[in-house]
C-alpha cells in the first residue's frame, strides 16, 4: 500500500532526486508551489464568495465604489514582498548550482541526431574512452507488436557510468542540431548547442540507474534518445573504468586487422541497426523522399570507395552525418560491406578496415 502510494506520488510531482542540488530544487519547488496554493485559496475564496453572495437573484443592489488608493497600494506592495520572499531561496539555490570548478573528473556529452556520445576526458589515457549511447528499445515494442518492457523508451545499449561521491563535470555540446541533456534525479538539465560548450556538474550519493530523455526538439527521433546513467560505488567504478580503458586500447590496436566476410556481415548488421536503420529503415528501403533507400541504390551498387567516402564524410545539407567521426574503421568497413551485400544488393566485393584507414589518410 505504502509503496504504491509513493509510486502514485512520483507520477504527480517532481522527483526529490539523489543529489544535494536536486533536493534543494525540490524543496524550492514545494515552497513556491505552496505559496501559490495559499494565494490561490485566498484569491479564489474571495471570488467564489462573491459569486455565491453577490447575485442579482438574491436581490443584491450593486455597490457604487470603484476605486481605493489604499487597497490598490496594498495589493501592489504585498505581492512584491511575497516575490522577494520567493526570490531569496531561488537565488541561493541558483548560486549553489553555479558552484563549478573543483571537479574530480570531466565527461564530454555530445548530442547527435538521435543518440548521445560520452567521452571521458582523461589526460592519463589520452581521452581514450568514448562511446555512443543509443536507445535499445526494440522497434517491435514501439510499433505495438510486442509487449513493452518496464523501461520502454528509457533503455540504452551503453550506460554512462560515473562514481558516487565524486564531483563530475559534464561538458555539453552537440554535433548537428540543439539537444538537451537532462537527468531529473540529479536536478540538472542543459541544452547541447552545436559549436558551444555548456558546463554542468553533479555529485551523486546513491548508486543506482537513473534515466532521463532529450528535452529539446531535435528532429524525427527526438522522443527516442534517452539518457541512462549508472552510478557505481567508487571502487567499482575505478575497476570498471580501468578494464574499459585496457579493452579500448586493445581494440584500437587490432582495429585495422582484416576480417572475414561473415565477421563483416555480422558486425555490419549490428552497426546498421544502431546507426542507420532509424532513417534508412531496417530493410534498407528508406523513407522517400527524405531518407533514400539503400537497397538497389546507385551508391551501394557503385564503386566501393565512393560508398565508403559518403559514409565517412556524410552529405552536407542533409541528415546524412559524417560517420567517420563516430565509428571506427572496423565498424565503417563492416557497415559498408553489409550495405553492399544485404537487402538484395549483391555486389560481392569486400571492404576492410584498412581500406577505410587508407581512404581517410589519402584525404
Amino acid at each position, binding site marked *: 500500500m505504502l509503496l504504491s502510494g509513493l509510486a502514485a506520488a512520483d*507520477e*504527480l*510531482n517532481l522527483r526529490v532526486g539523489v543529489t544535494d542540488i536536486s533536493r534543494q*530544487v525540490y524543496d*524550492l*519547488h514545494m515552497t513556491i*508551489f505552496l505559496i*501559490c496554493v495559499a*494565494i*490561490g485559496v485566498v*484569491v479564489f475564496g474571495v*471570488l467564489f464568495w*462573491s*459569486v455565491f453572495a*453577490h447575485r442579482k*437573484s438574491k436581490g*443584491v443592489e450593486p455597490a*457604487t*465604489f*470603484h476605486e*481605493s488608493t489604499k*487597497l*490598490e497600494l496594498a*495589493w*501592489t506592495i504585498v*505581492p512584491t514582498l511575497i*516575490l522577494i520572499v*520567493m*526570490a531569496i531561496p*531561488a537565488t541561493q539555490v*541558483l548560486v549553489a*548550482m553555479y558552484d563549478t570548478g573543483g571537479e574530480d573528473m570531466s565527461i564530454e556529452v555530445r548530442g547527435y541526431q538521435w543518440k548521445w556520445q560520452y567521452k571521458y576526458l582523461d589526460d592519463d589515457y589520452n581521452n581514450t574512452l568514448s562511446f555512443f549511447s543509443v536507445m535499445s528499445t526494440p522497434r517491435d*515494442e*514501439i*510499433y*505495438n507488436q510486442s509487449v513493452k518492457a518496464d523501461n*520502454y*523508451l528509457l533503455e540504452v545499449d551503453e550506460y554512462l557510468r560515473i562514481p558516487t561521491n565524486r564531483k563530475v563535470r559534464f561538458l555539453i555540446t552537440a554535433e*548537428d*542540431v540543439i539537444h*538537451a541533456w537532462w537527468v531529473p534525479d540529479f536536478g540538472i*538539465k*542543459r*541544452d547541447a*548547442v*552545436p*559549436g*558551444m560548450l555548456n*558546463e554542468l556538474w553533479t555529485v551523486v550519493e546513491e548508486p543506482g540507474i537513473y534515466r532521463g530523455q*532529450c*528535452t*529539446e*526538439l531535435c*528532429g524525427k527521433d*527526438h*522522443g*527516442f534518445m534517452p539518457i541512462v546513467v549508472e552510478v557505481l560505488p567508487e571502487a567499482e567504478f575505478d575497476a570498471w573504468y580501468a578494464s574499459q580503458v585496457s579493452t579500448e586500447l586493445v581494440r584500437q590496436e587490432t582495429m585495422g586487422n582484416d576480417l572475414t566476410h561473415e565477421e563483416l556481415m555480422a558486425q555490419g548488421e549490428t552497426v546498421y541497426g544502431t546507426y542507420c536503420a532509424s532513417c534508412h529503415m531496417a530493410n534498407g528501403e528508406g*523513407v522517400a523522399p*527524405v531518407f533514400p533507400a539503400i537497397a538497389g541504390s546507385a551508391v551501394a551498387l557503385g564503386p566501393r570507395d565512393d560508398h565508403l567516402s559518403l559514409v565517412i564524410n556524410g552529405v552536407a*545539407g542533409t541528415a546524412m552525418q559524417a560517420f567517420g567521426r563516430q565509428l571506427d574503421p572496423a565498424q565503417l568497413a563492416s557497415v559498408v560491406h553489409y550495405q553492399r551485400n544485404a537487402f538484395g544488393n549483391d555486389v560481392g566485393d569486400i571492404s576492410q578496415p584498412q581500406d577505410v584507414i587508407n581512404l581517410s589518410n589519402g584525404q
Partner: protein
Amino acid sequence: MSEVIHADHHDDHAHGPEKGLKRWLFTTNHKDIGTLYLWFSFAMFLVGGVLALVIRAELFQPGLQFVQPEFFNQMTTNHGLIMVFGAIMPAFVGLANWLIPMQVGAPDMALPRMNNLSFWILPFAFGMMISTLFMEGGGPNFGWTFYAPLSTTYAPPSVTYFIFAVHLMGASSIMGSINIIATILNMRAPGMTLMKMPMFVWTWLITAYLLIAVMPVLAGAVTMMLFDIHFGTSFFNAAGGGDPVMFQHIFWFFGHPEVYIMILPAFGIVSHIIPAFARKRLFGYTSMVYAVASIAFLSFIVWAHHMFTVGMPLAGQLFFMYSTMLIAVPTGVKVFNWISTMWRGSMTFETPMLFAIAFVVLFTMGGFSGLMLAITPVDYQYHDTYFVVAHFHYVLVPGALFSIIAAVYFWFPKWTGKMYDETLGKIHFWLSFVGVNVTFFPQHFSGLAGMPRRIPDYPLQFADFNMISSVGAFIFGLSQVFFLYVIIKSLRSGAPATGRSWEGAKGLEWTLPSPAPYHSFTQPPVVKDEEVLG
C-alpha cells in the same frame, strides 16, 4: 436621423454593402472586415484543432499507432503556428475591427483600404503554409519556435514557403496595428480623452504598439534563416562563425511580447464583461491602464526566461528571473481589480460572464505556473516538459480563447441584432470548461513527473495522464463544433436584440441600435461619463 435627411441623400446608396462575393472581396467596411477576420480565425481554429486531435490521438496510448514521428512533428509545429498566427491573433484583430470604431464613436477605421489588404493577405499566407504539409519532404517540423539549425540546415525544403508565409503574416499584423493606432489616436469622438477610453481600446492600443515593435524582429529572424539556407550566410551556424543561440534571443525578443499580444486584448474584453454582468463600474480603471502598460514594458525585458537552460552567466539568469517575477505584480493588480469589480455587485451569470469568470480563475492558474517557471533553478526541471505545455495552454485556451468566445457571445446581439440561445450557450460553456481542464490539468502532473514535450511516444509511467488528456481534448474539440452550431442557429433564428442588449452594458456601442448601422457613427456622439466610464 430623420426621414427628411434620408430623402435629401437619396442618391447616396453607395454606402450600403455590395451584393454577393464582391461585398467581401472589395469591402472597406470595418464590420465586414471584422466579420471576415472572425470567420477566418474560426476556420483556422478548427484546422489547428484537428491537428491537435491528431497529436492527442497518437498520444492516447504509448507506442506509435496512427502517425510516424516525422509527421507528428509537423502536427505539433503547425498546430502551434496556426493557433497563434491564424486563430488567436486574427480573432483579436477581428474584434478590434468590429468594436474599436463603435467604442470610440467613429464611423469606420482610419485606413479602410489598408484594412481590406491586411485581411486578404492572410488566406494566402495560411494557404501557402498549410500547402507545405502536402509537399515532398513535408511541412515545417521544427516546432512553432523554429530553432536554428533544425529550421535551417536540417529543415525540409518547404521551409522557404514557411518563411514567406511568416513574412506575409507579419505584414498583415503590422498594417492592422497601424490602422488600429491611427483610428484610436485620431478618430475618437470629442470628449473621449485617453483616460476615458474603454479598456478594450486601451489594451488594443498598447497591443498594436507591441506588434509594430516586434513583428519586424520576427521578419528579421526569418530573413536571416532564408539567407542561411539559400545564400551561404552563417547567422545561426557556429561552424561559419554564427551562433544558434542568437536565433533564440531574436526569436524570444519577438516571442515574449507576442504572448502578451495574445493576452492584453483579452484583459480588455474581460474588463467590459465583468462590470456589465456585475452591474457595477470597473474597479480601478486607472490602475488597470497602468498595469497593462507595465506588462507591455516588462514584456521586452524578460525574453531569456524561455532560455534558462541554454547556458547563460549567473548574472543573466538572475536578471531574467527577477524581471519575470515582477510581471506577477501588475498581473495580480488586474486580477484583484476584476474580483473587486464583482465584489458587492449584483451579478447574473449569462454565457459571456461564465466565460469571463472562468477566464479569471483559469488564467490565474496559468499565472501561478508561470511564476513557478520564472524561478530559474526549478525551471531547469520544468523546462521543455509538459508542465510548460500545461502552463501556456492554460493562459492561451481558457485565457485568450475563452475571452474571444466571451466577446462573441457578449457582442453577438450588437453585431447581428439577434440574441443567441442562452441554454445552448451555457451548455457550450460547461462542455468547454470541463474539456479544457480534463485536457490540460493532467499535463501539469505528467510534466512534473518528467515527460518531455514534443514527443510522439512516451515511457509507460506517463500513460494514465496522457489518456485522460486525450479524452479531454476530444470533449473540448467537439464542444467547439457545438459552438459553431450555436452561432449558426442563433444567426438564423435568434430572438431580436435591443440596442442595449444587456442590462449593465455600458459604452458607446450600446447606444447604437442592434444590429449596429453599417457606418457606425456618422455624427460624433456626445461622450457622457456615465456611459463611457460605466
